């Protein structure tokens, strides 16, 4: 009896989590087939038909395919740059004593407090001078720089949870500094790096302000800007907006479904060897 209760509770909580995760996506999917009138009359009603008109409208109003590809490139590169820098920087700070270390940590912490608006004008001028305004490179640099402070502290605490004994063993076995870092520490730090990657993915994917301020055309603009095309004073087109949201999240969801085995494997394998 106790076992059945436990099993029921387990499935109940799993169903609750499943519902909380899928309900918003299902709601957006249903809304993407509804008319303006149906959306505004009742948020929870089902669509009267499964017409694809909203999807056609979504493609008509905004260049979402182009912006989607831009997002993929910028998010991917932004994550890679952040992870590479943070993995090395946080390790050095967590393991070694050096001059001005507290000051460096303080400066990184201080950069967390910088509001985007306060640096947009200097960034605009610098980017224009460097001719990286309205380029993907410009946005990758900004997003990586903005993501590094938060990611740094995530990785700093993660490295501190890894026992020194592992590195000492590696050194005793004859491994040098780089071998120890790349072959011992980095595999152990993968869950932390995955967390950093996920935080960066969410932040960059949804970022609007710099994507607007540091671009002027379709070359580097990202999905959040495209979604603004459906919003206008007295002329919102929620139907097309929801259709665009479905079109842009579907490839990402499919990608994660296909890759989930590899992602989970990469997080769990190789943590402790021998």
């Amino acid at each position: 009896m106790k076992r059945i209760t436990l099993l029921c509770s387990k499935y109940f909580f799993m169903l609750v989590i499943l519902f909380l995760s899928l309900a918003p996506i299902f709601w957006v999917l249903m809304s993407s087939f509804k008319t303006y009138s149906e959306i505004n009359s009742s948020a929870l009603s089902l669509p009267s038909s499964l017409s694809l008109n909203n999807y056609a409208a979504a493609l008509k109003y905004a260049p979402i395919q182009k912006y989607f590809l831009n997002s993929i490139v910028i998010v991917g590169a932004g994550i890679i740059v952040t992870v590479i820098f943070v993995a090395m920087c946080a390790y050095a700070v967590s393991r070694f004593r050096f001059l001005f270390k507290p000051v460096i940590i303080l400066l990184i912490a201080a950069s967390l407090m910088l509001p985007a608006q306060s640096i947009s004008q200097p960034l605009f001028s610098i980017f224009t001078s460097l001719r990286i305004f309205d380029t993907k490179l410009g946005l990758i640099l900004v997003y990586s720089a903005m993501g590094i402070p938060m990611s740094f502290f995530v990785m700093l605490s993660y490295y501190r949870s890894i026992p020194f004994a592992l590195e000492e063993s590696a050194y005793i076995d004859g491994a040098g500094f780089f071998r120890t870092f790349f072959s011992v520490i980095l595999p152990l730090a993968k869950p932390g790096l995955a967390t950093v990657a996920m935080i960066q993915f969410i932040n960059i994917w949804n970022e609007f302000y710099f994507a607007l301020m540091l671009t002027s055309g379709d070359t580097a603009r990202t999905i959040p800007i495209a979604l603004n095309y459906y919003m206008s004073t007295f002329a919102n087109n929620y139907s097309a907006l929801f259709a665009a949201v479905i079109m842009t999240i579907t490839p990402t969801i499919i990608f994660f479904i296909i890759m989930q085995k590899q992602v989970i494997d990469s997080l769990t394998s190789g943590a402790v060897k021998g």
Partner: protein
Amino acid sequence: MNTGLKKLMAAMLAVLLTVSLAGCFGNPDTGGTAGSGDKVVLSVINYHVGTDFGADYYSYLFDSFTQTPAGRNVEFKFEEIPTTDAFNQKIKLLIASGDLPDIVLNGGNNITELAARSGKVADLTPYFDADPEWRGLFDELSLEFNTVDGKIYGVPVSKEISYIYYNKELFNRAGVTAPETAFPTWDALFAACDKFIDAGITPLGMDSADSGWLTNLWFSALIATQSKAGEKWMNTQYPSNYETPEVIAAAGQLQRMLSEYTTPDAVGGRYDPMATHFFNGEVAMFPNGPWMIPDFRSPDKAPADFYDKVGIMLMPHYGMEMVPTPGDMVGATDPAKIDAAVAFLKYSTTVENQIKALEMTGLQPVSSQVTIPNSLRASDPLMAQVLDISAKAQITYGQNQAYWHQNVIDAFSNFLPELAYGYITPEQFCAKLGEAALKN
């Protein structure tokens, strides 16, 4: 890590980095300042894109200008920024950095004064002085609205007006006779509201979220039609004292309207669901401007025969909001570009284009010289009726979203629910607006 996964990850990283680097240096050109051959290239940041109600009209305007003798030599270089909020953020940044486009469309939000005081936009007074016929298209109020320190910086392209739309069918069902032009007093309007309530019909469309646009229109009318002092107050830009008898009295009436005469979802509700109530025949009266008229015929928004059910009346006491709009400016510094930009702005305000804007978007002509063409009376009688009824307004006034500081508009929206539920008195509501105003 197993070998297969390593290879997969390495391949993905390589592809990603290659694609990134290939695309990174896409478009370093930022300004649109270069000429190509003999052409004058004018940069424009256009927010009339996507679902914006003026998107089709502005597309026509830019295209057709290049077919005219003045525009034949002009080429436009566009940056699109959807929504006026995003547009205003970017323009403020460009004012600060001195990188304004050659033609600066005006999205409101006090951009004119900001740009003028920065010295980054051209003084257009000499162009108005040199062309009396063009200047004659505008009334003094419209030009004064676009003047900073005695110099005209903006060319207004329209006027903003608002009044009441009503559902003729619901009026018949409730046994209420719709006035020919306006209810003579607010008491007469409230008496009609009571009849609607008795008939099981919600009388008024209101909202509170975002900026509380609809409620703001009612509030502006209530203040302006209280007394001469109220009318003067509503024609004052950036008032600081909100605790005047007429504003407090208007807030009291607004409280009554919110608690007795509107839909349950008005408090906390946004414009769109409220408009849908009106389209669905669930609300009898709805304040708004002429830009709403195309929606009455939109199959996505309203039932097929809805357009024919709609009537128009002024606010009680024959009141009507009539605000000059902030005009488009010239950010170019090169004389040839300034001339070309002014030529475009002149073109955008020709009588023909004001009529075109009215027909395509409902933008109200800025010039009193525009006469309604017979074709419009036939194709869009409701729009023609708007122009007719405008002439009958006895009290005209500004509108809170044009004349108030942004933080006061926000405070208005934030404290409306408390006013509606009686958690604060009209006096306290007005005091909170005043407190916000004094922070500027």
